[in-house]
Every structure is written in structure tokens, then in C-alpha cells.
């Protein structure tokens, strides 16, 4: 991958990801970013070592529960070892792909299992979305934007995370390539678009619907379910 990732999750977000305290949909976007970003691969490995050592170093108060521990210990050591434990882990991350608009894109390991079960692509102009089958409260989808297409100016009613999986996307704030993670807070407004010669595939995580702002596109607000 020649593109150098420029937009990363902050340290605190990575710490919460490693600790396992992020909500699953946000963690999924962070995980897919890490799959694409060597810098954050190293960082999350370091954070894991650090948190594990903090856990191992902590002083614990010995309560009067030795009998309970002994029972648990006896129970565990009487269990057989895993039958399949000898089988090796996959050494390298497995890649999967999705096909949209006649093109096939590789997607990160973190999305492979979910993307296999994706619903159908829904098309609207140059834009297509496919919702990933996660729990009901989460709005995780793949978003395809054909070249030379603009997503109408919108405001986020909640948190929006967009991870570029292929191609490139531009908005008022900059240009984002493969692996870049954009996080828009509630009330942020922007008009993302693709360049004339390159389309774009993204992972989109939304905590609330988008609100379209301008002119005729306000008519899109009834269609916000399309993106959400």
C-alpha cells in the first residue's frame, strides 16, 4: 500500500478500543482502520502490552474467597484441552472483497465476515449503500460513491465515522485516501465528493441520521434512511 495514512483515531480512542470499552460499531471502524494502517498496528500492540502489564501489576485485595477460587480451579483443570487447539491461527489477515458498480474491491479483515452477509446494494444516483448485518441499533454500511459525484451538503445529527477503503474522497476540510478515518461530530457540516477520475468505497458508521441542508436536496431528508 503506497498511500500513507494521514487521519488516525486519537490515542484515547485507540486505548478504549484495546480495552474493549468502545461500542461495537465504533470499534469496528477503528479495527478496520488498524487493518489498513501500520502505524496504528504498532500503536495498538503497544497499548495492549501496556494495559496487560497494568492489569498484571495491579495490587489486589485478597478477600476471603479462597474456597470459591479453589472450586473454580478444580473445575477448570478437570476440563479436557481444546480439540482444535493445535490448529494454527491464520498467519496473515485474510482479505475479502465486495463487488459494486461492476467493480471488485478488497476490504479489510475486520469487515470480511460481516460483508459476506451484507444486504443488497441500494442505488441512488451515483451513490450506493449496503448495510452490514450488525445489531439493530447500529448503522454500519458500505458506501460507494461513483467518480465525479457529490453527496449533498449535510449536517450530522450524531457521530459519523467514515473510513476510506478504496479510492479517494474530498470535502471542505481536505482529501482522504485509503485508510484515512474521518470523524465528524454532531453539528459538523460538510459536502463530501469524489474526484472526476476516481470513485470511492467507504465504511460508514452513523449514530444518528444525516440532515440535508440545501435547496432541493432538503427533499432528500425523507430519504435519510438511505444513508442511515
Amino acid at each position, binding site marked *: 500500500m503506497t498511500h500513507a495514512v494521514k487521519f488516525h483515531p486519537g490515542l484515547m480512542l485507540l486505548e478504549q478500543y484495546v480495552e*474493549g470499552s468502545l461500542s461495537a460499531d465504533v470499534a469496528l471502524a477503528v479495527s478496520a482502520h488498524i487493518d489498513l494502517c501500520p502505524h496504528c498496528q504498532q*500503536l495498538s500492540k503497544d497499548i495492549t502490552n501496556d494495559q496487560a502489564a497494568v*492489569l498484571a501489576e495491579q*495490587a*489486589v485485595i485478597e478477600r476471603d474467597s479462597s474456597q470459591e477460587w479453589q472450586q473454580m480451579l478444580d473445575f477448570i483443570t478437570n476440563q479436557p484441552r481444546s480439540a482444535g487447539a493445535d490448529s494454527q491461527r491464520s498467519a496473515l489477515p485474510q482479505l475479502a472483497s465486495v463487488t459494486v458498480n461492476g467493480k471488485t474491491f478488497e476490504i479489510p479483515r475486520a469487515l470480511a465476515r460481516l460483508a459476506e452477509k451484507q444486504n443488497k446494494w441500494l442505488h441512488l444516483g451515483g451513490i450506493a449503500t449496503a448495510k452490514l448485518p450488525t*445489531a439493530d441499533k447500529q448503522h454500519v454500511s458500505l458506501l460507494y460513491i461513483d467518480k465525479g459525484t457529490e453527496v449533498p451538503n449535510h449536517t450530522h445529527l450524531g457521530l459519523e465515522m467514515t473510513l476510506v477503503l478504496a479510492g479517494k474522497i474530498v470535502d471542505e476540510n481536505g482529501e482522504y485516501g485509503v485508510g484515512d478515518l474521518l470523524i465528524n461530530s454532531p453539528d459538523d457540516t460538510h459536502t463530501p465528493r469524489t474526484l472526476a477520475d476516481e470513485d470511492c468505497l467507504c465504511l460508514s458508521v452513523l449514530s444518528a441520521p444525516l440532515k440535508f441542508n440545501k435547496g432541493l436536496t432538503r427533499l432528500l431528508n425523507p430519504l435519510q434512511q438511505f444513508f442511515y
Partner: protein
Amino acid sequence: MLETTALTGHHDVLAKQKRISQPMTIITNSEPRTGQWEDALTLVALNQDKDAYAELFKYFAPRLRAFGMKMFGNEQQAMEMVQDAMLNVWRKAQLFDASRGCASTWIFTIARNVRFDMLRKKQSRKDDISADDLWFDGDYPEQESNSSEHWDTMLMSEKLAPHFDALPPAQRMVMQKVYLEEKSHQEVSDELAIPLGTVKSRIRLALDRLREALDDTRS
């Protein structure tokens, strides 16, 4: 700097979420020697050695319970997590590979994953996001090591002092021994009885944190 402001923005959003609680008592005395748990896991893997396992269990089970209490706030679920995690340690010890990291890291990630899946199972249907999706249990392709030498100029900065004091205690202690007392990584590892890899990880994390802090004050 566009990138920095973008990242600072992320922090503002997520700062509302629960902060990882940092202060914890750190024992430096009576700490087991480095390598003890790795050896114990190897004995469990090779011989299903119950004595070696009991040593691991006595040390880690109460600490995993504390981790579970912090995350669940509930004794019964915390103990359920401990049992599931420690059972995995017993049954899958062959999968532990000391060349990929230390025993405490392996055990921590097992507990974290068990806990995550316990929560999801209670909440939703089975094709939902799972711990296996989120945390890759394998190695990414090797990157050329980014040496920490170019950090030295940053460490000379006068502005650094307040940020240095704000580092998490465990990271600050490692940084102090390496940069102020000029000890080697190995010496720090021996002195604090933490794995060499953890010493290196803490240095990289502290440097990253300091860089983030310095960037913040600049913008």
C-alpha cells in the same frame, strides 16, 4: 496543522466517554521474575501441568476479577468472565507463542474478548460483530522499525515538563529510568520485573502521547 486539529476534534467528541482509569497501585517489590508466566504456560501446553496452571490461576484470576468488576460493575458477571477466560487459558495454552508477546498480554486479550462477547450475546443476535472481527489474532506484515532517536530533540523541549508529569504513572516511571537515569531497556525490565517488550511499548506510547500533547499546545 490540519491533521492535528482534526485529531483534537476527535478527542473532544470521545472525551465524553468513560476515560480509562489510570491510577493503580504498582507493586515493584515481591514481583515475580520476568519469564515466570511464560514458562508456566509452556508447561501447561506441553504436559497439562496442573501445578504450573495453579500458579497462573492464583496470580491472574483475582486480577481478572478486578478487571471484570471495573467493566461489568457486577460480581457475578465478573466471576463468569474469569472462569471463561481462565478456562480458555487452560484449554488453549498450546496457542500461546512467547515469541509474539508475553503471557500477561495473551491472558488480558483473552479476558477482554470473552467479556466483549458475553456483553454482545446478552444484547443481540448471533451474526453481530464479535471479538474475532474486532481484534485480529495474528501478525500483520512486518514494518521497518521506527526508531525513537528522532524524538530526542522533542525531549529537549522546555514545554515538555508538564506533559511529562501528566503521563500515566507506569509510562512515566519507564521514561524516567530510561531518559533521566540513563538505564538500558533491559535494566529497566529487570528492575521493574516487566517484560522487555512492555518496556519498549511504554516508551513508544509515552513518546506518542508527548508528541500529541506538544502538537495540541501548538495549534
